C-alpha cells in the first residue's frame, strides 16, 4: 500500500540546516496497523506529513497504492489527499462553527457529492463512531473523546486508502484514549490501513507493528502481539 525508499528531508533554520529524515526505507501492506514511535525530534511527525502529502520530501521515492507521489502541485495534492488519505490530528482540528455532521461531511463536499448523499453517508459514519445523536452539536459542546471520534468519522467518510493519525490520543486521558483506540482497532479489523504516530508505549502496543525512529533513521521495525483496547473499555 505504502512504499518509500531513501527518503530525505531537512529544514532550513536560519543559517543552519536541520536534517530530520536521513534515508527512510519503509513498506506498509494493506490492512496493517502501524505505530510510528520515537522521541520528539526523531522525525516521526515529519514522516507522517510527507506520507500525508502535507509536506514534500527533498529526495527519495514515495509510492501510494502503485501511484508514484512526486512533483505534486497544490491542486493535485489536495485532490490526492481528498481521495486517498484520511487525517486524524492531536488537536482534532474540527471547524468550530460547524456541527459534527457538517464537519464529517466536509471531505465529501470537496468531492462534489450532493448534499443528500453527504448527509446520509456522514450520519452513517457518525453512527459507526457512536455519535449519531450528537450529529447536530457543535464541537464546543462535545468532550475531547467525542471530538476525536468525530474527527475519525471525518477521516473515514471519504473511504480513503490510508488513515493517518498524528498523536491522536495526545490530548485525551487514558480511558478516553483506549476508547478511541478501540474504535481504531475496529476500523482496522474491517481491512483499513492505518498509521499511528505516538510516543506512548501502551498505545503503540495496541497496533500490530511498531516502527522506531531515532534521529531520522529507522532503528527498529517489528511485528507485535496486538493488545486489544476493548478489554479496558466496559
Amino acid at each position, binding site marked *: 500500500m505504502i512504499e518509500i525508499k531513501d527518503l530525505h528531508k531537512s529544514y532550513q533554520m536560519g543559517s543552519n540546516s536541520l536534517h530530520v529524515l536521513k534515508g527512510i526505507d519503509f513498506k506498509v501492506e494493506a490492512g496493517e496497523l502501524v505505530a510510528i514511535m520515537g522521541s520528539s525530534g526523531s522525525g516521526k511527525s515529519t514522516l507522517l506529513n510527507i506520507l500525508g502529502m502535507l*509536506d514534500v520530501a527533498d529526495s527519495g521515492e514515495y509510492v501510494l497504492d502503485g501511484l508514484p507521489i512526486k512533483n505534486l502541485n497544490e*491542486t493535485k495534492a489536495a485532490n490526492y489527499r481528498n481521495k486517498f488519505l484520511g487525517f486524524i490530528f492531536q488537536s482534532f482540528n*474540527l471547524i468550530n462553527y460547524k456541527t459534527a455532521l457538517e464537519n464529517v461531511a466536509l471531505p465529501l463536499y470537496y*468531492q462534489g457529492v*450532493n448534499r443528500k448523499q453527504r448527509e446520509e453517508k456522514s450520519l452513517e459514519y457518525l453512527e459507526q463512531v457512536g455519535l449519531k445523536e450528537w450529529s447536530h452539536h457543535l464541537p464546543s459542546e462535545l468532550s475531547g473523546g467525542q471530538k476525536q471520534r468525530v474527527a475519525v468519522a471525518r477521516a473515514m467518510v*471519504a473511504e480513503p486508502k490510508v488513515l493517518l493519525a498524528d498523536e491522536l490520543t495526545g490530548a485525551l486521558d487514558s480511558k478516553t484514549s483506549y476508547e478511541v483506540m478501540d474504535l481504531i482497532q475496529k476500523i482496522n479489523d474491517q481491512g483499513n490501513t492505518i498509521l499511528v504516530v505516538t510516543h506512548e508505549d501502551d498505545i503503540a502496543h495496541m497496533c500490530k507493528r511498531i516502527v522506531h525512529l531515532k534521529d531520522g533513521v529507522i532503528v527498529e521495525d517489528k511485528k507485535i502481539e496486538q493488545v486489544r483496547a476493548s478489554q479496558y473499555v466496559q
Partner: protein
Amino acid sequence: MFSRDTWREIFITLRKNKLRTFLSGFTVALGILIFITLFGMGNGLVNTFNDFFGDDATNVIYIFPGRTSIPYKGYKSNRNIEFENSDLTDIEETFPMFVEHISPRIFRTVTTTYKEESNDYTTIGVDWGQQFAEKTIIMQGRYINQRDVEGRTRNAVIGRLVEVDLFNGRNAIGKYIDIGGSVFKVVGVFQDDGGDNEERQIYIPYTTRQLIEKNTDEIGQIVVQFKPELGYTGAMAFEKNLRIFLKDKKFISPEDQNGFFIRNVADNLKQNQDFAGVLQMIVSIVAFGTIIAGIIGISNIMVYVVKERTKEIGIRKAIGATPKRVIGSILLESVFITTVSGFIGMLIGIGVLKWIGDRLKEDYFITSPYISTGVAIFATVILIFFGALAGYIPARRAARIKPIVALRNE
C-alpha cells in the same frame, strides 16, 4: 463555483460568524452612506448657491454712473457722468436687436411716515420693466405700470417689511403714506427672495421722482434687459458695444475705466457657476476620500479575516480543498457582503438625502441635496470591486500556505 452548495456553504459561514459579517458589512455600508450623504450635501450647497444668485434675472446689464479719470476732447478729468432720459431712448434705438427693455433706477433714501410710524427707507424710482429684472413678486395689489410712469402719478409699491413696520401688519393697500414730504398712495406690496434689505424698499415711478426734484432729466442707473436668446457670448458682445457707444456719447476716453461701470449679470452668473463647479469638485474629492477610506477599512478587515481563518483554511486543505476553492469561497463571501451592505448603505444614503430635503436650508445653506443614481451606483460598484480585490490578495496568500504551517497556527 456558483452552485447552490457553494452558496449554502457561504451563508452558513456568514451566519455562524455574525460579528465578522457585521463588521465588514458595516464598514462598507458606512463608507457608501457617508459618500452619498457628503456628495449629496455638496450638490445641495451648489443648489443654494444657484438659488442665491438666481434671485435676479440673468439677462440684465446694470450701468452705474462714475467719474472720468482721463481728460478727453477738451473736457477735464474728474468730471461727473450723469445719465438722462435721452440715454434710455438712444440705447433702445441703437441696439434694437439686443434690447428687450430698458429702465432707469433712481435711488433716494427718504423718511417715510404713516400716521405715527416713521422710518427711513430706500425709495427707487423705476418704470414697469424693473419688476422682471429684480424678479419682484407682488403679494397684493399691483406693480408700477406704464400709466403711472407716463402720468407721473403718486402711486407707490412697498416692500413686505415696510408694511410690517409702518402698518403693523395691517393691509396697506389704498392707504396714503408720506414719502419725503409728498403723499403717495400704496397700490401694491411685494416680496423678494433677495433678502430683508430688498423687502425694505419702496418703488415709485421714476418720472414722479424727477418731477418732485424740480423736473430734472437725470436718472441714476440704467438697467438694460437684453434678449435671453443672446446667450453668454451675445451678452458679452452687447456689453462691449454698449461700452463703446456710451463712451462716445458721453465724451469719455476709450481708455477711461471710471466714467461709468457696467455689471453684467450674465458674466457674474458664469463666474458664479464656475465657482460652484469648483465647490462641487472639492466636495467630490472629499467624498472620494471617504470611499478610499472605506476601501482601506474593508481591506484591513479582509486581512484580519483571512488571518483568523488560517487554521480553518489549513483544515480544509488537509481534507481536500484545492487552492482555487479556498480563494473562491473567501472571495465570494467578501463580494457578497460588500454587495449587499453596499447597496443597503446606498439606499440609506439616498433616504437620508431625501429626509434632509430643505431642513438644512436656513442654517447650513443646503437646498434639496441629491445624488444621481449613476454616481451612487458607480461608487458602490467601485467599493465592491476593491473589496473583492482586498479579499483576493490575502486569500491567495492563505491558499498558498502549506496545510501543516496553517494547522500549526494556534
